């Protein structure tokens, strides 16, 4: 599989603070990656290093096959960092023309990309007159100008209203569906869950996990249960080795599985034991729950 970005033992220190510690991972073509981590976990620093704006302390990284310089490689990358940064006194069109000059892209792309993000009718308005949502969409248009091999987004929905968030998300999904590799840094887990196939989880600059989303923790899912015979249900579950952790919250019993079991099998088993369930749902942990489990393990 074609690799796009390889990071080896990357370390960044700001004085005494180690923002990124011995980080290694690889980004392959065609996947949608999420970098997860709480605020201050080193997501933006990592992206800053590979994007040539932050100097690394140790380690190495290379784009594509490693034969191009970083700044030439970046011409094949589209990236948005934190806030959209443009010249306030220039119009959207003029700003994008400048980006075209930097990236050696033909000007004809400008209108095409403005169309995608829905800013074509505002293209001659000055950037400073734009709302935050429009600025962020312009940033996406700018990142798409060179039809990038990989699109890097750092907290793309930060500070947007629900409508703006929705617009950006559907844009990202649309771009992902066209086969563009995406690297999305976020602390909003549902955002990552909705679009990403792979995740890298960071905490305090240390990598906790990298790989496909579904393999993040070895889990067989859990049942959410309700029954009239509440106490019997709990004692039954507690004695059964197939179940691990049992939680009760507002009368809702959550039983985590130690080994695979489907809902039909479970229901039959309960029925034979004389317990009639009034509520039975089998679920996998959401990314948020998985993430919290993963980060909690180290506390």
């Amino acid at each position, binding site marked *: 599989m074609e690799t796009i970005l390889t990071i080896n033992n990357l370390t960044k220190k700001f004085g005494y603070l180690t923002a990124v510690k011995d980080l290694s991972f690889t980004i392959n073509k065609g996947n949608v990656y999420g970098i997860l981590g709480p605020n201050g976990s080193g997501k933006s620093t990592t992206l800053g290093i590979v994007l040539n*704006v932050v100097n690394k302390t140790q380690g190495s990284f290379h784009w594509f096959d490693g034969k191009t310089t970083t*700044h030439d490689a970046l011409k094949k990358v589209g*990236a948005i960092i934190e806030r959209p*940064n*443009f*010249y306030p006194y*220039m119009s959207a069109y*003029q700003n994008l023309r400048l980006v075209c000059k*930097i990236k050696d892209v033909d000007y004809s792309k400008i209108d095409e990309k403005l169309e995608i993000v829905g800013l074509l009718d505002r293209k001659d308005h000055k950037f400073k007159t734009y709302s935050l949502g429009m600025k962020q969409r312009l940033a996406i248009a*700018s990142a798409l100008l060179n039809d990038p091999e990989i699109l890097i987004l750092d907290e793309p929905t930060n500070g947007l209203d629900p409508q703006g968030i929705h617009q950006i998300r559907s844009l990202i999904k649309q771009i992902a569906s066209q086969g563009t590799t995406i690297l999305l840094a976020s602390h909003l887990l549902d955002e990552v869950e909705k679009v990403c196939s792979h995740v890298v989880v960071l905490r305090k600059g240390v990598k906790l996990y990298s790989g496909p989303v579904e393999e993040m923790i070895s889990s067989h899912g859990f049942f959410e249960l309700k029954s009239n015979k509440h106490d019997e249900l709990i004692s039954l579950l507690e004695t059964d080795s197939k179940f691990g952790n049992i939680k009760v919250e507002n009368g809702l019993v959550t039983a985590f599985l130690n080994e695979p079991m489907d809902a039909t099998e479970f229901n039959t088993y309960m029925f034979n034991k004389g317990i009639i369930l009034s509520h039975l749902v089998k679920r996998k942990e959401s990314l948020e729950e998985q993430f919290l489990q993963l980060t909690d393990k180290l506390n």
Partner: protein
Amino acid sequence: MLRLINLELQKLLLNRASKVLIFISFILPFTVLVLSSIKINFFGFFTLELGELGIFNFPIIWHITTFFAAQFKFFFAIVVVSMIGNEYSNKTIKQNLIDGLSKKEFILSKFYTIVFFSLLATALIGVSSLLIGLYYSSYTEVAIIVRETDFLLAYFVKLVGFFSLCLYFGMLVKRSAFALGFLFVLFILENIILGLITWQFNYDLAEKIQNYFPLKSMYKLIDQPFQRIVMTKFPDKQEIAYDYAVHWYEIVIVIAWTALFVFLSYRLLKKRDL
């Protein structure tokens, strides 16, 4: 190279403030030059015609026009520091680098622009001096006209040097106003050191050392022409004679400073986390 200049010109010329300042920095010295060359009649009381003082004679005209035009370099200095300051305050420097401009290219695009505008200013002053000279000068032999055109070279080197200094201060403090303040601080500092050395040793030594300082070495390129004007009127007054010529070593000093400032700007950007 053209790509980098083109890039910077778009940033500058679409910004109204820098457009106005660039316009002023070119038009003002030019206007002053033209105005001073025409005959001004003060309501019939007397007429002032600077041309009759002989200051527009070749070759002294090169000295005078470049000296006075250089005083207007401050306007473009504001443009230079603000073109760095704006990149930092808009965070567009970060975006430029992310978009695939290398740090070296970023500094070079600023430096090339400085060279470009310095060349333009030199050409403008050169052509207008030539025309005014041809009109007023008592001597128009080619050999005399081309004598002392090295003042034009000195003017160019002086501009590039001064703006490179502004570039470095802009990169250093990231804020336009502070960068201009730094220029003033440097000016005071150079004079304090001059005073200190004079106090410890003597003025001659102090001045010799000061001639190597950035601001003084740039100033020294084109010495003040007033004494020389007086000298043309009273050629027998030997005690006011002084060395006003442009010397190769003066140019070398300023070029060395220019190279140092550009290099330091690059190193600063390279080491800095944005």
